[in-house]
């Protein structure tokens, strides 16, 4: 069967690394390109980490492109308390020996999308800056991207503020540009990603594999693990693996069609993904699906199976 061509746009990122290493092993999909963006960490870290993680996954043939160093309008605010200063929770992995790409994310993504004639699925798992720039620079890219499976936002609640999620809050203007572009979107927000967790047994099992991927998992996750203990969350949410696993196995997820826009003007609501899922008022344009639930045991199993195979 023909594999689904997938582009991953990432601010790599501890959970981004899990998403990438899982993506490389999922049968139904083929990673055809990766681009880096500032978010969890600075762009140069994200770029290096994406390259190194892909290399660790044994796929130096997959090209990794550098992207935006800052959000469209807001000042960049990275998250070293979660992802460490290097973006991988201070874990060290070997440097990739792949040639360093100088083509920018938005150009490389556009070329690939055009080449694949509308078949490309893009999984942005960081702020949407690169995608917004690509749409602005190459307006016809909207005809070539099949769908955007995004990690970002929340229909209910938030994490960096009571009502905004990190990726969208980091660059709300880019997110709004993307959601207004007309490209179909499947939004994996906190509603589903907090249900997409690895529990203590899953974590112990992954670490027990003792391979290079599971070593990275162990060495990169400790800050998140400690933060999680502080707030008494029951599992390790694998946010960024959600849109990737969704791309390969959508049947494991549940969502609802709706309109989604990003609040860029609010005082306390900046970066909120505003949906009309439950309001009497409906947006005129409803080309999005908010993903709200996941089959967690199957989700965890796919990550474990991927890690075991390293």
């Amino acid at each position, binding site marked *: 069967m023909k594999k689904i061509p997938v582009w991953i746009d990432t601010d790599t990122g501890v959970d981004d690394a899990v998403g990438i290493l899982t993506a490389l092993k999922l049968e139904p999909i083929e990673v055809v390109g990766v681009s880096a963006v500032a978010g969890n960490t600075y762009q140069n870290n994200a770029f290096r980490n994406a390259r190194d993680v892909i290399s660790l996954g044994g796929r130096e043939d997959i090209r990794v492109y550098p992207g935006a160093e800052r959000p469209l309008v807001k000042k960049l605010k990275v998250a070293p308390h979660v992802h460490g200063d290097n973006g991988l929770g201070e874990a060290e992995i070997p440097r990739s020996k792949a040639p360093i790409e100088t083509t920018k994310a938005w150009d490389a993504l556009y070329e690939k999308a055009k080449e694949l004639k509308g078949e490309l699925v893009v999984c942005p798992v960081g702020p949407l800056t690169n995608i917004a720039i690509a749409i602005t620079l190459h307006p016809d890219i909207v005809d070539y991207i099949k769908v955007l499976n995004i990690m970002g936002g929340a229909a*209910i*609640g938030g994490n960096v*503020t*009571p*009502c905004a999620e990190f990726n969208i809050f980091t660059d709300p203007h880019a997110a709004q540009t993307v959601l207004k572009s007309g490209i179909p979107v499947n939004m994996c927000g906190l509603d589903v990603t907090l249900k997409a967790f690895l529990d203590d047994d899953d974590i112990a099992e992954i670490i027990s594999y003792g391979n290079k991927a599971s070593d990275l998992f162990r060495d990169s996750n400790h800050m998140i693990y400690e933060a999680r203990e502080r*707030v008494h969350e029951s599992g390790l949410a694998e946010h960024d693996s959600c849109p990737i696993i969704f791309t390969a196995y959508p049947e494991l997820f549940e969502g609802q069609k709706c*309109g989604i*826009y990003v*609040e*860029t*003007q*609010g*005082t*306390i*609501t900046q970066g*909120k993904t*505003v*949906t*009309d*899922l*439950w*309001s*009497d*008022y409906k*947006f005129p344009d409803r080309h999005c699906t908010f993903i709200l639930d996941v089959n967690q045991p199957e989700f965890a199993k796919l990550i474990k199976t991927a890690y075991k195979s390293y």
Partner: protein
Amino acid sequence: MDKIRKRPVILDGDPGHDDAIAWVLAAAADELDIKAITTVAGNQTLEKVTYNARRIAALLHLDIEVAKGRNRPLCSELIIAPNFHGETGLDGPVLPEPDHKLSDLSAPEMMAKVLRESEEKVTIISTGAQTNVAAMLLAYPELKEKIEMISTMGGGLRNGNWTAGAEFNILVDPEAAYNVYHSGVKLQMCGLDVTEKALVYPEDWERIRSLNNPIAKVVAEWFDFFFIHVSSLGWSGATTHDPCAVLSILHPEIFDIRDYYVDIELNGEYTRGATIADYTGRHSNEPNCACVVDLDREKFVDYLYEACSRYEGWEV
């Protein structure tokens, strides 16, 4: 002889079918002593809702003068909802004409007078925009200590209705709501989270109609009218918003009430008037609001039925 200790209340609203039903519930409750009715622009213009309030007071034999508020919100242009409530703001059954004159006091002045004169703390039941309540709190902050609580219908933690982000009452006057939520006064919020679950089905109000007393018949006819627009939005029952603000203080045990810090968005392209809760408590101060988020629908309907049954033999 033992006398039932009555809880003094002020009814502040913009009737409006669901305000009217809320007031029928309040007037039927032995536990409540209605000290004043004040009106606020919202569901319809101030003149129309004030006329409606005076007609409802006559219908319910309330021996009080209605006091009207300002004809518009603090800063916003007025939004009205004739699609739900009709041209009069209370279309449907014929009501008696007002039998008391309109008060010379403005709504906030009337509230202040009641608070000042009351020996006991007073509960304000606010079922419209919070313009009057905010004006009173701003003008007479020293009277805050005379307020037992403000029980409001407004907002929605999960969703809006008039816009994707905001519920009608808060959207009409977000700056007023902001003042109320930051006032430090004990606040209970019946938002869409609960009021969109407070569904009264046609068979429920047929049961009420069959009580065959004048008030029950009027209530059933209000439901008939209100449901015309509500059903066109896809609802299988009437979203009985404002009565939640009364029943949640009379019978809190049938409601699920959670304490959160809630703030009001004043700006925003999509979120002006949104009520934003800090569910995890990680981002803000102590909770400022008791948020009513769920209810036992069957019991809610039973209390509504029971209240209507108390008007047996009522003369209109």
